[in-house]
């Protein structure tokens, strides 16, 4: 399973910290390596605590490690693109191309095809975009890329909204969440329920070789999934939850914590699938009620009173039901580890 960790367990840091001086270098995460690729380097203009900036470096550094640097990345329009490449500075240290909002997957298909035609089969291709560029405007292209099984890893950095344009609702915005286009007014404040797109499952429906989800809270899991993805050829999809302090109304320091809570509550199931079948899931270590996840986020503030008590129990119950369903569906409540 891709979420296998180092077999040696060191309880001082568990196997969960970025590095661990007690294990062999090659068993440590790519991020612990002082010589890591730093695919996205300092000086980018992401908000302080941006989960997308973090997720992108995690994922691309892992991909760089897996491909020994033979990597090309295609980026959809969105925060990641805007904060990384405002003329005259780029934060990328890898070969990188931005074309448009909707077409990252197709451009990547072209890159892969061009490389193949030129006999450069050693170079691998990653396409990446936000949830808008993935689940909404880029959806058709992406589905085409999946269907053709083009040799591209598509990474969706899901911050559950159109952040670059000022936090509007996207196809992955959760129910009840406040965005600029789902305001906290009227009888059903925030986003409506039941209209979100479950991208990983949609990807799985294409029966592509590899689909996985991850969060920025579990680096080892994330890296192993990237590695796993790069070990496959054909269309692959990795969906990474990347909290956005600005859009979620959260503390910049809470980015990883929220990602962790998303997993520990079950609201964001972490799993992987091959050829359309779920093959493993990352068990919840400390099962947590969903309100613990919602409370620190101002986009859900209307579900709580001023003392932080749940004031909209029926809405929270709906979200909890989603969590419970995920836990059941993906078998997330196993004993610790794998």
């Amino acid at each position: 399973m891709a979420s296998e960790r180092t077999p040696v367990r060191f309880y001082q840091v568990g196997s969960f910290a970025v590095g661990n001086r007690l294990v062999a270098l090659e068993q440590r995460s790519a991020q612990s390596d002082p010589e890591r690729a730093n695919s996205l380097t300092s000086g980018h203009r992401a908000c302080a605590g941006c989960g997308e900036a973090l997720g992108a470096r995690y994922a691309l550094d892992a991909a760089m490690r897996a491909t020994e640097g033979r990597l090309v990345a295609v980026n959809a329009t969105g925060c990641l693109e805007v904060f990384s490449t405002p003329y005259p500075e780029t934060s990328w240290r890898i070969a990188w191309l931005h074309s448009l909002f909707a077409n990252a997957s197709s451009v990547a298909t072209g890159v892969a095809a061009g490389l193949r035609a030129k006999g450069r089969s050693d170079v691998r291709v990653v396409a990446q975009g936000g949830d808008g560029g993935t689940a909404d405007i880029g959806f058709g292209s992406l589905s085409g890329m999946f269907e053709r099984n083009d040799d591209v890893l598509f990474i969706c950095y899901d911050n559950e909204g159109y952040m670059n344009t000022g936090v509007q609702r996207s196809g992955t915005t959760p129910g009840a969440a406040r965005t600029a286009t789902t305001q906290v007014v009227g009888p059903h404040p925030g986003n409506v329920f039941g209209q979100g797109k479950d991208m990983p499952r949609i990807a799985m429906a294409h029966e592509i070789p590899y689909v996985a989800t991850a969060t920025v809270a579990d680096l080892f899991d994330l890296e192993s999934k990237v590695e796993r993805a790069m070990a496959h050829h054909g269309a692959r999809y990795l969906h990474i939850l990347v909290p956005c302090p600005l859009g979620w109304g959260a503390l910049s320091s809470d980015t990883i914590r929220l990602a962790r809570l998303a997993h520990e509550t079950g609201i964001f199931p972490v799993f992987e699938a091959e050829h359309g079948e779920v093959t493993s899931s990352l068990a919840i270590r400390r099962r947590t009620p969903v309100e613990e996840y919602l409370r620190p986020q101002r986009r859900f503030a209307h579900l709580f009173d001023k003392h932080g008590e749940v004031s909209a129990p029926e809405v929270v119950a709906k979200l909890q039901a989603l969590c419970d369903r995920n836990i059941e569906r993906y078998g997330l409540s196993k004993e610790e580890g794998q």
Partner: protein
Amino acid sequence: MSKKPFAITLGVGTSLANKTGSWRVERPVYVDRLPPCNNACPAGENIQGWLYEAEEGNYEAAWRLLMTANPLPAIMGRACFHPCETSCNRAQIDEAVGINAVERFLGDQAIEEGWRVPVVAEPSGRRVLVVGSGPAGLSAAYHLRLAGHEVEIHEAAPLPGGMLRYGIPAYRLPRDVVEAEIDRIVQMDVRLVLNSRIERVSDAMAQGGFDAAFVGIGAQRGKHPDIPSGDAAKVLDAVSMLHGFEDGEAPVLGRRVVVYGGGDTAMDAARTAQRLGATETIVVYRRTRDHMPAHDEEVLDAQAEGVQMRWLSTVARADGGRLTIEKMVLNDKGVAEPTGEFEDLEADSLVLALGQDTDLSLVGDWSEVVTTGGVVNVDVSQMTGRAGVFAGGDASSSPTGERTVTAAVGHGARAAAAIDAWLAGGVFEPVAERPLATVERLNSWYYADAPRTMRPHLEAIRRRSNFDEVVGGLTAEDALFEARRCMSCGNCFECDNCFGVCPDNAVIKLGPGLRYEFNLDYCKGCGICAKECPCGAIDMVPEHR
């Protein structure tokens, strides 16, 4: 580059020109907080520090760090009541780290390997008298030697060790261990004069040409409260009984033994009585189990060996073969009050374990040496009212009132530092306390839940008949495992988390042992590093520009 389209195509990594550090309103700083174990250690050990070494299997380095505070790890690894573990943050997550067991492992390893601590300091030419070779005296002597002073220990008893030898029974503290650790200190050119009772410290100092003295005479006299007793009654105190036993005079206690008192000494007396052939040993205590001063472990071990407990009882009278017991009740303040109800209890002997007193006549000629409650008053530097005369261990006052081997070692070490300063004409400066590494500062998610390695306990049944050590040691593997359970509270252990979780790559990894540095050119002050630091070794502080 000129070939590349203007503005649309950019050279990689050029954003380094954009110093995002200017956005910061808070900056992260690395801190070293005081781990609660260290804070709780009466001997002043840097427990987190030596566990850090042990985690990597650097046992000698761990031992050497340990030895900078405590010269008796093998002893302490057995006798210490480990308040460190009680306050260990891990206790709030799963179970406390078995610090004591690792300490013992290191101590035993050192004995086995013959590790020694060299005296590297230049001889100071100053002479210090140490009275008493209990843990307080041994600790003082060791640290004074390390500081380059000449040390002479005068011990009234024929063998050194104080209560390590004459109090704590061998099934808990094997004598070869005691001897090995004492011997290691003596080998550092400490002069040990046995069978030498100091009657007057003033005289001894004058005669021996000592520049300073440390009094570590412990509390040797068992308390004998006035219990009406018949002629045939066999009443003795626990200390004398244990002492006598150690001297080879096994006391005749009979088959039914009653031990009176609720402390650790009572437990040791009862367990020793069991080993000496008593078929029925009963501990009689005024109050209830939860009020007993004895440590839980000791009580459980005693019970496991068949010792019975009789709570809410006092001994009103002792006669040959029989005791009269008065039943007590606890009032709402938890104080035991007599009920006027009496009962008989068959007993061949009554062992009193009600505390010990100290004979302070050796400083009686110095009016400036003040005593309170039977112990010598000392200041923070362990100095008595008399300049140049220091005291520690059971014989001295202590802020916590703790009377343990560990406290004694701590006193000895502190006194040695103070004597060293005093001899140099300076003043002893206690090390400034760092703020505590509290459990709320930890991000425990990074620590996997791991059960504590239990020290293999000898079968309870086997313990009854001999004085073999009851608690076994850890194997090297277990010791490593246990050490690695340490969460390194408040002190960086180079887990790379800050280096990894920074969205701005603003943490510089300096290499093994060198930790990290913040790159303030780029740090935006998001605070993720501080929140995700497993051990709480990063603070966020307001940025003043």
